């Protein structure tokens, strides 16, 4: 391993590491724009130049591999003059948009100019004017005056989704990034150019003028729940007088899962958290009509109804259709409640065909996968499956229809929509107790006796297991609505109303119990699940999914 000195600090890195990457390992910032570890190297911005002993000219750190004995200086007068000059060149035509530019406050051009740039302008020339706020696509706005032509966006569209919508047109200082006339920037990953753009040239339509970075009170690490890839994300929450609001979701770098990217669906679909149509309070059907009540009241009635069914018909008259939308912790507690406390063998999560396979398939060869829920793998690993003599989902629906099942619990699945060609409505209408949990009202909740409002992933502490078998944490970014209760709390209170003890429900305690079970998760503790996830050791029988020989891009 070559060893070199950067600003006097000794660094040892593998051969072929660039000076830029080597500097990063020891916390030395080398300012740069065009370089990005996920994209091809073009060496155009010229900002990352550093002084290398015995090289007559400054070298660009992003494309110069380290050598043993190399001596690099990043703060010599020569480097400082060069950096200041590059920034001065950028600022010649850059509009003074900071007061109205979304990037302000998290802008590398502001930051680098403050640190390395000129304090004043020497230019007596008119700034070049270009078209501003152009709608490039459903999610993207482009401002050609702000663009510094780093070409990250162009390279991204060419190299990752391989859709090539963007190009640099003309040459020299007339160069301008644009779309082919009449085209739209609407590939499934278009939002990533917002993260990539070092200035406010490419910004989010959804986020436009919504906030300043310093008004975002929380940046919560979590995992996207919209498919089995489990892209790592950050949830940006803004404080408002009327409460907090989730304003933005961004990808979090995870080399093994999503690298630096996420798809647009997961990035932009979160308005549902504050959708007024969300179910807020639990309801219980009285005189044929759902009546809103507090949790305690609903759970009391629910406990009574359960007791009646079990005492009359036995535990096997109860069934539970759980969901791969639930966290590992919620699923574990469901297992405990239904299999152990109630004692029914009828438990399953497999509502969609893709969930019957060992693993789902990649949808686009990039990040999106065909299982549109986050935790099928976790559900399988935690045995959310029929016990001895137990019915699967189809079996439970049939048993509900013919009266064998008297009570059915459905968590976060709209069975009416999932099985359009079966008489689900009739099946669901038959049991004397139907309980549904959901974020929004559905045909299933419309038929239920008891409806419990569900929380979204941004309101929970827990974990999902992605298709690779990687356990990844979700953290609470938003406080749930005052009237709501998380599923673990609801089950604990319901168990108590039945005179039983569900056990401890905090994630650490749940994992203490999971860790004691034989199986894939044996020995794992909550604290073991790192910010980038945890792959359990390969144990006999624990299938490690090969991603078809292709790294996530």
């Amino acid at each position: 391993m070559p060893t070199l000195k950067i600003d006097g600090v000794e660094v040892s890195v593998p051969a072929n590491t660039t000076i830029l990457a080597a500097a990063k390992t020891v916390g030395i910032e080398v300012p740069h724009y065009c370089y990005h570890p996920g994209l091809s190297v073009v060496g155009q911005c010229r900002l990352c130049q550093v002084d290398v002993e015995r090289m007559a000219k400054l070298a660009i750190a992003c494309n110069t591999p380290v050598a043993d004995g190399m001596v690099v200086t990043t703060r010599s007068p020569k480097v400082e003059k060069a950096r200041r000059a590059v920034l001065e060149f950028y600022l010649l035509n850059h509009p003074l948009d900071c007061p109205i530019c979304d990037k302000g406050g998290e802008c590398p051009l502001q930051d680098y100019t403050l640190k390395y740039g000129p304090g004043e302008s020497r230019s007596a020339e008119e700034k070049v004017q270009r078209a501003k706020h152009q709608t490039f696509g459903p999610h993207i706005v482009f401002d050609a005056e702000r663009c510094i032509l780093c070409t990250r966006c162009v390279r991204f569209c060419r190299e990752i989704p391989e859709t090539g919508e963007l190009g640099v047109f003309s040459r020299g200082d007339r160069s301008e990034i644009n779309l082919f006339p009449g085209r739209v920037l609407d590939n499934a990953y278009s939002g990533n150019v917002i993260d990539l753009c070092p200035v406010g040239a490419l910004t989010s339509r959804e986020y436009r003028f919504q906030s300043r970075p310093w008004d975002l009170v929380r940046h919560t690490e979590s995992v996207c729940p919209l498919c089995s890839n489990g892209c790592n994300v950050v949830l940006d929450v803004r404080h408002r007088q009327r409460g907090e609001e989730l304003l933005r979701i961004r990808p979090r770098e995870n080399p093994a899962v999503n690298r630096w990217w996420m798809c647009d669906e997961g990035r932009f679909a979160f308005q549902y958290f504050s959708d007024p149509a969300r179910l807020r309070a639990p309801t219980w059907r009285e005189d044929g009509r759902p009546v809103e009540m507090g949790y305690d009241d609903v759970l009391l009635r629910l406990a009574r109804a359960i007791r009646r069914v079990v005492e009359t018909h036995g535990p096997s008259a109860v069934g539970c259709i759980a969901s791969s939308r639930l966290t590992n912790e919620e699923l574990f507690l469901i297992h405990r409640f239904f299999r152990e406390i109630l004692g029914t063998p009828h438990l399953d999560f497999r509502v969609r065909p893709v969930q019957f396979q060992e693993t789902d398939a990649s949808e686009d060869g990039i990040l999106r996968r065909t299982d549109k829920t986050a935790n099928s793998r976790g559900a399988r690993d935690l045995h959310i499956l029929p016990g001895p003599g137990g019915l699967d989902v189809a079996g439970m629906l049939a048993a509900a229809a013919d009266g064998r099942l008297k009570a059915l619990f459905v968590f976060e699945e709209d069975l009416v929509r999932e099985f359009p060609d079966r008489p689900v409505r009739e099946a669901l209408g038959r049991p004397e107790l139907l309980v549904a949990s959901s974020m929004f009202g559905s045909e299933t909740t419309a038929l239920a006796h008891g409806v419990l409002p569900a929380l979204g992933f941004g309101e929970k502490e827990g974990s999902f297991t992605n298709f690779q078998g990687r356990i990844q944490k979700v953290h609470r970014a938003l406080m749930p609505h005052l009237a709501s209760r998380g599923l673990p709390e609801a089950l604990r209170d319901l168990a108590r109303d039945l005179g039983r003890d569900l056990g401890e429900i905090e994630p650490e305690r749940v994992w203490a119990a999971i860790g004691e079970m034989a199986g894939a998760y044996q020995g794992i503790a909550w604290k073991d699940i790192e910010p980038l996830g945890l792959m359990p050791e390969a144990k006999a029988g624990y299938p490690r999914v090969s991603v078809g020989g292709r790294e996530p891009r």
Partner: protein
Amino acid sequence: MAGSSGRGRERIGRPATGVGKSGMDFERILTRYKDILNYTGTIDEYIAHGGYQALPKALREFQPDQLIEEVKKSGLRGRGGAGFPCGLKWGFIPRDSPKPKYLVCNCDESEPGTFKDRMLIEEEPHQLIEGIAISSYAIGCHLAFIYCRGEFVHGARVLQRALADAYARGYLGKNILGSGFDLDLYVHRGAGAYICGEETGLLESLEGKRGQPRMKPPFPAIAGLYRSPTVVNNVETLSNIPHIVVRGADWYAGIGPSRSAGPRLFSVSGHVERPGNYELPMSITLRELIFEHAGGMRDGRRLKAVIPGGSSAPVLTEQHLDVTMDFESLAAAGSMGGSGGVIVMDDTACMVRVGEIVSRFYHHESCGQCTQCREGTAWLHKVLRRLERGQGRREDLDLLLDMCDNMKGKTICVLSDAAAMPIESYLKYFREEFEAHVRERACPFEGNGAF
């Protein structure tokens, strides 16, 4: 002087001459065809005056690496602008590489003041073709291209006709002259971009992309066209090759100064009596070139400034007239041999206006990749334009110098340096003219100058 459709000489000024007042006859080599009456450069005429003897000799008597040695020994240096030793460049091609080797002839002649390659392809195309064939054999290339700038419409047609004739006679194609050596050679037209004369910009353009130069290393000899080993040589450079083969490296090395051997085509233009291409050894002085060969200053005016090697070369003045036109001497004088384009200016030329025109060129031609060049070439031009219009500020002069310093040595290619160095030289030798523009808030030449 109606449309030019094939007959060369009269369009391009007087024929290149090697005869000077000093009486020293210089035997022309590349342009010896000009001695032949009514010469049109067809294959039969070329053969009749000794052409296509070098190729069979090379194939018969030389192994490829021996040819490379011969060219190294000759001391031939690139004639495109960089002056890099030709044999040395060929030697960088890794013979053992399993990748195909390519030879690309750089016919993108766009350096302001240079018009010799155009003459060579229009008037003596087979000399070039023969040179390319020999060079391809030397480096193991079987597919070569002539990258011809798009504006050379006529030149490209002449080349295409010549290629067809060369194929028909067996000087190109399969099993050339029974040697077992195959070579395909095509003309590839550019579409108007000076930066495609930079060798990696050229390769990008040849690959069907924007002509944006590549980061180096890797150099083209290792990863060039289609990432394979490639040699890029100028038209004039390659045109020398047949002569080296026929008459030998020692003969060639004896022409002119030892470190700048061989004949050079100087393109002389501007305020001289007889602008044109002149084939001369590089031992000639700038004074001799201008006053003995190119007829001296027009209208008997005084020489004010000379750009000796294309507009990228720093300017020289009267005090430099005795410099010899070889690479080393010109560099020592603070300029460069460059492309051999000699632009002569008399005392009617406003040097600020010259700066404006030259900076306008680089502003237009910057590919736009590197920040310093993209923004710097534009800023340089704008400041010079303001100065010329009498809207300059005193601080603009030192601003220009600092801008130039920030533009040099920090970019992917040297267009940025080529834009900066001339301006630095105009300020060095003619600063008082710039100051006059600022002081008088006008161009002192307004209405009376060359422009």
